[in-house]
């Protein structure tokens, strides 16, 4: 899929033997990524559907209560961090297309940095939830009554809240997994860009990876309101 290691600018060297030309190769790679992403839509879609149905059929306000345990402002800031990494990724593709090697290196590094920042934030959030006993399991909710006004949440509402947090950790976990995979690929591309004229020679791989990165961003754009903001 990726071009061979030769450093010539000869198009012929960039095209795998079974393709006719670079145009065909780029088109195929982009199409492949788009198809993969439409597959991913259904992957996340499956769990979103489950979430929607459980929420719809739930008979108490455990989901809303669960949602209000999350900090929407922290989530919002993290959303902004991820959007920023999307911007720098888009700019990296632009730099590759216009053959600005230095800028390409800069923007890829920034994307990597913002992506890592997002994960670090997310990690702190998870740790906080662990501390206040919001991780599903036998001890779930044991520290709920300590804060707040001392009112006791009925047991079955706690159960529904736990269901909410099962979804929360599954969805954010799967999203984080996609981030980790993305960051790994990004790191490889960055190293290649620092070492060679990878990217400016053929912007194809950068563009294809960019699609993936933006998609992970789009998933978060839905995760954020679905988990953090539905608290009424």
């Amino acid at each position, binding site marked *: *899929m990726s071009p061979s290691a030769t450093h010539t600018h000869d198009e012929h060297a960039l095209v*795998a*033997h*079974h*393709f*006719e030309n670079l145009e*065909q190769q780029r*088109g*195929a790679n982009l*199409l*492949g990524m788009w*198809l*993969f992403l*439409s*597959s*991913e839509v*259904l*992957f*996340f*879609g*499956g*769990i979103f*559907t*489950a979430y929607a*149905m*459980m929420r719809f*059929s*739930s008979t108490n306000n455990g989901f809303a209560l669960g949602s209000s345990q999350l900090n929407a402002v922290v989530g919002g800031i993290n959303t902004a961090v991820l959007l920023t990494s999307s911007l720098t990724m888009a700019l990296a593709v632009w730099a590759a297309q216009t053959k600005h090697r230095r800028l390409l290196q800069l923007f890829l590094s920034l994307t990597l940095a913002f992506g890592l920042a997002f994960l670090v934030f997310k990690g702190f959030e998870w740790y906080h939830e662990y501390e206040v006993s919001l991780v*599903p*399991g036998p001890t779930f909710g044991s520290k709920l009554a300590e804060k707040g006004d001392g009112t006791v949440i009925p047991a*079955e509402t706690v*159960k*529904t809240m*736990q*269901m909410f947090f*099962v*979804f929360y950790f*599954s969805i954010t976990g*799967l999203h984080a997994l996609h981030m980790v995979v993305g960051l790994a690929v990004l790191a490889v591309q960055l190293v290649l860009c620092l070492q060679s004229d990878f990217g400016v020679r053929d912007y194809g791989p950068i563009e294809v990876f960019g699609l993936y990165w933006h998609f992970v961003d789009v998933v978060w754009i839905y995760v954020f309101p679905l988990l953090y903001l539905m608290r009424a």
Partner: protein
Amino acid sequence: MTTVAVEPRPQPFEPRSIKRADYLNISYGVRSWLLTLDHKRIAILYLISISIFFFVGGVFAAVVRLELATPKGDLLQSDTYNKMFTLHGVVMLFFFLIPAIPATLGNFLVPLMIGAKDLAFPRLNLMSWYVFMIAGMFGIYTMLAGGVDTGWTFYTPLSPKYANSQVMTAALAALIAGFSSILTGLNFMVTIHKMRAPGLTWFRLPLFVWSQYATSLIQILGTPVLAVTILLVAAERMLHIGIFDPALGGDPVLFQHLFWFYSHPAVYIMILPAMGVISELVTTFAKKVIFGYSFIAFSSVAIAVLGFLVWGHHMFVSSQSPYAGLIFSFLSMLVAIPSAIKVFNWTATLWRGSVSWDTPMLYAFGFIGLFTIGGLTGLFLACLATDVHLTHTYFVVAHFHYIMVGGAIMAYLGGLHYWWPKITGRMYPEFWAKFAAIIIFVGFNLTFFPQFVLGYQGMPRRYHEYPAEFQVLNVMSTAGASILAVGYIIPAVYFIWSMKYAKVAGRNPWGATGLEWSTTSPPPADNFEKTPIVSLPPYIYSKEEATVVP
């Protein structure tokens, strides 16, 4: 239009003395196979792996049928029996039927049929085989570590909470095999979109390619839902938290929705490529253009899309809302139409043709007959009132075996015989092939037809012992299964024999149209001596003007 891709006349066998470099002899050694990027070699890798899985799954089936010869559970303990039918289902579905036609015949033929040098992503193609094999390892580990007894459907709360067998590894095997399936579908779809030879427009594509395209759609859009569902079940089993367990406030019916959203279309992953194979066989052996090309092509896509709208017909008695049942029943009924279109068009193609009775055509006849029965009996299960009586019984077992074994495997074997000369460069022994085809047809019907009656009588599926009144039909079924087993072993033997000893085949032993027949047998590593240019629609055998019946 420098080259006409179609060779209207059969070629005489080429002399053996000309030694060409083909994909088989271009390099030797295990390494050259395990690291190959050639779609044809990867197809062979798949062929070997799925054949092994087929026989493993077949052994499980044989054990199941042996146990059912008597009403008492005397051969096996109940939990051993449960593991047998579960493993039979898991192995046959995820490791044989789903990859069967796409990953072997499809892998070999799609690039050849569209005049490409390879699939769009050769590395991904090899990777999908390795992913498949990793899944296979999990499957084999499951068997060795004691098996799994949840049924291939993994229904909750049985599988995450109550089963004490190797549910995790079995589920992982299905999950990983799913990824392999997604990658294959993705590869095909990009290839069909981007790699067609000059002049090969969409309506000049062979119908096999159309059916592969429709199949890929299901693989790409359906499989991820299975993946995420399995992950949720795995989380539920490992962490004892979850969304399908009523004790935790969850809903087991939700699992069925998510599961069947993939697993119903999965049936079409198996049968659509089979339909594609049959379209090729029927035209070649009738020497006649296919009747209603565009109707067959679009009916494939229609089946792929409709297949996603009907999963609820597995749930009419699951406590799903009866109103949802109403909608699902209605939509399920509609699948009858594209299926009818295909059957009638194949039949009409024979009209005034020049019909040969070669082995692949025997399989095609068998397919059309058995698929007709399998498809029509689907009406009982799509219809709400009869489904209440028949679901969860042997009627369902008979119905889907008519589709998957009578349909998909007949077509797979037919296709394998048809393209065997192209794949290996050798013919197969015609007498034994015909003999096996007839044995399989007879054995199949004897095995599965009695099960329709059993189901109507009310015998539930997945019973290792049963009331004595069901014995007569069960004995018939077991007898049929032993005939069927013989029928499957014969081709395995003569195919292996043929690779060395059988008659050498020329480029085009059947006198077929299609780009794959214009290259040598076996094809060279890059498939074609030079890129073909296509100027004609497919299946043009006669130079006469085509007529249209009003």
